[in-house]
């Protein structure tokens, strides 16, 4: 199944603008977080006629900002649980919008969230088929689609 019509950058920009009031601008396509940055990754898996995953990765600092906007609180006051909830929901919305554009019958998993430095996300049997990078208040947002092909 082709996935070439799915524009992750546009999907992400619409979500971040509507939910957080933040502007996502396209960034250098090969940009990635520095290895010393704490990165929060939200993942949802899609199964069915198309199988794979959608990820959203942000720095811990931007995750904290987004969480504060979600909850209407001060960035210094947000909890790790709230950050996990927020990044998971950003991944859920991104994955849900991707799923809506896929042909056939697909199911969306609940989101999972990982936090740490210098790690990579591997989905068994899947490879990256779309990758979008965006800049938000000087911070990097990375969104990917990984398709399971065997």
């Amino acid at each position, binding site marked *: 199944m082709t996935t070439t019509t799915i524009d992750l950058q546009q999907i992400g920009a619409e979500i971040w603008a509507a*939910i957080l009031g933040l502007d996502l601008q396209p960034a250098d396509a090969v940009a990635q977080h520095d290895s010393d940055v704490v990165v929060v990754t939200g993942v949802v898996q899609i199964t069915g006629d198309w199988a794979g995953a959608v990820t959203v990765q942000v720095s811990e600092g931007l995750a904290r900002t987004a969480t504060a906007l*979600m*909850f*209407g609180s001060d960035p210094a006051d947000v909890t790790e649980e*709230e950050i996990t909830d*927020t990044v998971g929901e950003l991944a*859920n919305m991104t994955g*849900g919008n991707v799923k809506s554009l896929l042909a056939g019958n697909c199911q969306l998993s609940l989101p999972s969230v990982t936090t740490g430095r210098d790690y990579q996300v591997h989905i068994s049997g899947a490879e990256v088929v779309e990758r979008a990078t965006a800049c938000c208040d000087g911070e990097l947002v990375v969104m990917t689609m990984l398709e399971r092909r065997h």
Partner: protein
Amino acid sequence: MKILVVDDSKAMRAIVKRALSGLDRVAGATIIEAADGKEAFGTVQAEQPDLVLSDWNMPEMTGIELLQALNEAGVSVTFGFVTSESTPEMHELAKSNGAKFLVSKPFTPESIDAALAGAI
């Protein structure tokens, strides 16, 4: 008016509540929450809300399972979905089970207001 917001994401419940709080259509409404369909099923019967706004994909009991369970229990309540997934099949399934609307995430206060206009 009493509105039950059902979503496993506390962050999303906060966003939905904030959107509702700015709408004249539901001004003064009491907003209560549930974290999944199973909890919401009990809350609907205990609190008897006028409107349920539910996510679709949740642990324990999904939104559509909640609506079907309410129907089977003979509980009548105005019900709408607020969900990140929005396919024609989901719209049809929601409608066939009596849902009044399905609002896609990301939503705006205006899109929720437009959905509520035809439901309450």
